[in-house]
């Protein structure tokens, strides 16, 4: 498909500005640009072009999207409508507190809900996404230790199953990462943990449940070991959906955690964002939370900045406020009964898929999974079929492929996360497709190796893209 630049025709632009009431300028020689190489297209061309691009995309609304670690649940439309309310959409972030009561109250109430479901007394909604929450949390851990004059702690322990953002975050805070191997059951290897854990340890970044979709049965032992050495337990809460309403993170000995509002709390992923981040912490870490806090005085709300030990600010203004509105709207709809069911039904759906596909695809870990199930291609290797082939073939059946080749510790992993919003019929159809693909792997392997057959393009050459990067269109519009 042509780009918008290739569709440009000189003189075509129809855009009309309001009538000018003044024309004087004070921008002198050398201050202004002479050329603006932007396209000229009609409004209808724009509508068709971007409608076409949207149709060459796949969202939760298009079909089942079992992308592991991403919690692609339904994005309720009421959330969008509430974020679009005039009083929110047109709310300027520099309005003073008295003029911002609605915004402050909404954030405050969202925090109250999150305190109740996570068990953490301290929290912030300032981070703009999961990784931003990680950064906030790890900075808080750093500030906590430094505040105790505990300056030698430089080691961050990270399981080998962790998401890449964990080690990348630790590095952004100047820490050295130490990888902790997993044991045969997919949990943290306690002996190996003990071997690296010492007084130089900042803490551990643990995803709960982990990226294998497993709940580490030694969690209380792990937090105890860390605390004995003065280290902190950080929980990557990207997988909170598995335990929302079933386990309160604070009770596990977690000191600080992040949540992705765009996963557990149903805000749309937007093709790669926006997200929303939340960081919750125990009381000993409260002083280090970002400085901007919302305080309730009687019936009114105000911003408070009196936190001298705070790490400061991680994001201007009220962060991704519109995302917070969406999450709050969802929380209201769930209420106490709904909240309790989220984790349970997410876990039920994943285990149902696991049970029905266990004879068709290899499952590296036998324990009941949580909200997602990790398979791999071990049973298909004999037919020269890889996880990539299976994933691409699923496209032909109308599905978005699962997460593939992550976590790194499972060879050829294929990670399926159905979420609680999918019905049994949807799961059954997906299971049928997966069974069919397992059969095709045996009898018509080339069908898989050449898949997808139905998409806009065949498999793309990423090596070429990286070797000779073309990152902008070079069609000139002047």
């Amino acid at each position, binding site marked *: 498909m042509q780009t918008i630049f290739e569709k440009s025709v000189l003189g075509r632009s129809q855009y009309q*500005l309001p009538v000018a009431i003044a024309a004087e300028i004070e921008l002198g020689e050398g201050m202004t640009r002479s050329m603006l190489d932007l396209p000229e297209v009609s409004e209808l061309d724009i509508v068709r072009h971007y409608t076409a691009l949207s149709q060459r995309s796949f969202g939760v609304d298009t079909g089942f999207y079992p992308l592991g670690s991403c919690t692609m649940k339904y994005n309720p439309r009421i959330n969008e409508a509430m974020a679009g309310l005039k009083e929110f959409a047109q709310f300027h972030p520099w309005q003073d507190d008295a003029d911002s009561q609605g915004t402050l109250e909404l954030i405050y109430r969202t925090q109250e809900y999150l305190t109740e479901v996570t068990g953490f007394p301290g929290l912030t909604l300032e981070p703009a996404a999961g990784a931003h929450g990680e950064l906030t949390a790890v900075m808080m851990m750093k500030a906590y230790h430094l505040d105790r004059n505990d300056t030698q702690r430089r080691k961050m322990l990270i399981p080998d199953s962790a998401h890449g953002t964990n080690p990348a975050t630790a590095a952004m805070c100047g820490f050295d990462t130490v990888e902790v191997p997993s044991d045969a059951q997919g949990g943290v290897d306690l002996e190996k943990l003990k071997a690296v854990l010492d007084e130089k340890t900042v803490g551990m970044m643990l995803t709960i449940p982990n990226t294998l979709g497993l709940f580490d049965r030694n969690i209380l032992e792990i937090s105890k070991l860390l605390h004995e050495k003065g280290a902190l337990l950080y929980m990557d809460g990207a997988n909170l959906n598995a335990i929302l309403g079933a386990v309160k993170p604070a009770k596990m000995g977690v000191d600080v955690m992040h949540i992705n509002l765009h996963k557990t709390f149903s805000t749309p992923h937007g093709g790669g964002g926006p997200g929303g981040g939340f960081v919750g912490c125990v009381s000993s870490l409260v002083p280090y939370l970002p400085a901007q806090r919302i305080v309730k005085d009687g019936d009114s709300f105000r911003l408070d900045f009196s936190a001298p030990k705070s790490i400061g600010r991680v994001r201007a203004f009220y962060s991704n406020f519109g995302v917070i509105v969406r999450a709050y709207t969802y929380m209201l709809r769930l209420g106490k009964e709904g909240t309790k069911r989220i984790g349970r039904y997410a876990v039920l759906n994943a285990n149902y898929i696991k049970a029905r596909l266990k004879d068709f695809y290899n499952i590296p870990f036998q324990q009941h999974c949580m909200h997602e199930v990790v398979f791999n291609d071990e049973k298909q290797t004999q037919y020269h079929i890889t996880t990539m082939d299976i994933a691409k073939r699923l496209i032909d059946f109308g599905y978005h492929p699962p997460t593939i080749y992550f976590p790194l510790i499972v060879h050829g992993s294929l990670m399926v996360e159905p979420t609680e919003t999918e019905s049994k019929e949807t799961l059954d159809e997906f299971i049928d497709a997966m069974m069919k693909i397992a059969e095709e792997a045996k009898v018509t392997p080339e069908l898989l190796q050449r898949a997808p057959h139905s998409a806009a393009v065949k498999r793309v050459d990423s090596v070429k893209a990286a070797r000779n990067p073309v990152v902008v269109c070079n069609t000139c519009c002047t």
Partner: protein
Amino acid sequence: MPYIPHTKRDTEEMLKAIGINQIEDLFEAVPSDLLEMNEFNLPAGFSEQETRQHVSGIAAKNWTAEASFLGGGFYHHYIPEHVTNLGTRSEFFTAYTPYQPEISQGILQAIFEYQTMIVRLTGLDATNASMYDGSSATGETCLMAANITDRKKILVARSVHPQYREVMRTYCNGKGLIMEEVPFDMSSGQVDAAALGSSLTEEIAGIFVQSPNFFGVVENMKELSDMAHEKGAVSVQIITEALSLGILTPPGKNNVDIAVGEGQSFGIPVSGGGPSFGFLACVEKYIRKLPGRIVGETVDEDGKKAYVLTLQAREQHIRREKASSNICTNQTLFAIRALIYLATLGKKLRDLALLNHSHSLAFQKMLSEKGLRRVFSKPFFNEFVVDGCDTLLLQKLKEQRIAGGLPLKRFYPELKNSLLVCVTEMITKDDMEKYLREFLFIKEAPLRSA
């Protein structure tokens, strides 16, 4: 139950297929005293109708201006209807990051087009698929500058948005970088070039200057960039009013190495400060130091043009602790919306930028005639600082549903009676006249009572 479609029978059949009796059995790995069996202390769930009433009730507690002269990093601009309409198509907003290129060509192409727009606007060579916002993107740029130069000190102009400076400080503290502030000139409103020059040693990784700066004043980016380069530092231009790119000399032409900023002006509502998106563009030689996703053009197996996420050897999922950043999710949906906005305005973006400039200049002159003095002498884009304002004026304007501007005292004690006033195309002649009327009313009040 909202959003959970299981009937009782579904659940029973599923439990049976798994071979268990109740859902809780699946949580057998959870230590038993951790499993929450009690009710949460939360209200019962609301119907959609009740939800709408409740949230609308909270929203109504925000004061909403009919005319707003507030800028300072977020701007009220007109958003064409089709931009909102296309930008909220659900194939875009319910998708994840385009990891699977074959079924994500639409989003990938949109990001590719967005990258092209940003590169053309900034006059630089490369950019990524977006950042969270301008402030955090600027924080990341501190790390990027340190990484490029292998130096540990950042110089930032005090005329940079105060919250951006706070975020920069947080990122610098995290990484162990030192951030030093450079004063601005009280008469021009630009960064004090002499002071910058004396702080600019061979230890400096980068200079961070906002232009137009927090006072709306345009900086001499070329001169400053050349000073930075002489000492081996990178020159970073921060931009919070992206519309200024429509008329002002692009960063690339001023020898700027990295342009970073906020894209909200391009078709995105102010919404309390987000979600919108940050942009980060650089010269060719730093492309492999960029954080985040980048889309590149390539071909598929049949040789057909295709797009894919590329240069991933910078990113956290490949490089882990050696990645250029930890960013994963960004703000793609709003980058796409900005793209559609920019495609709509096209070359008219220049006219819109000029209109913003002329209207703000005209209003500044009207105010100055009546006695509200302009504080800084150098040219501004669409916001400016006036002196002689008091809280009574803002109060009176508020009664007329006008947000009169941003008092600067809390960020700059030396600017104690100053107000930052922004005029975009949303401000009508009528709004300006109302503003003046209120001002004159207050000014003349003492005379009346005498």
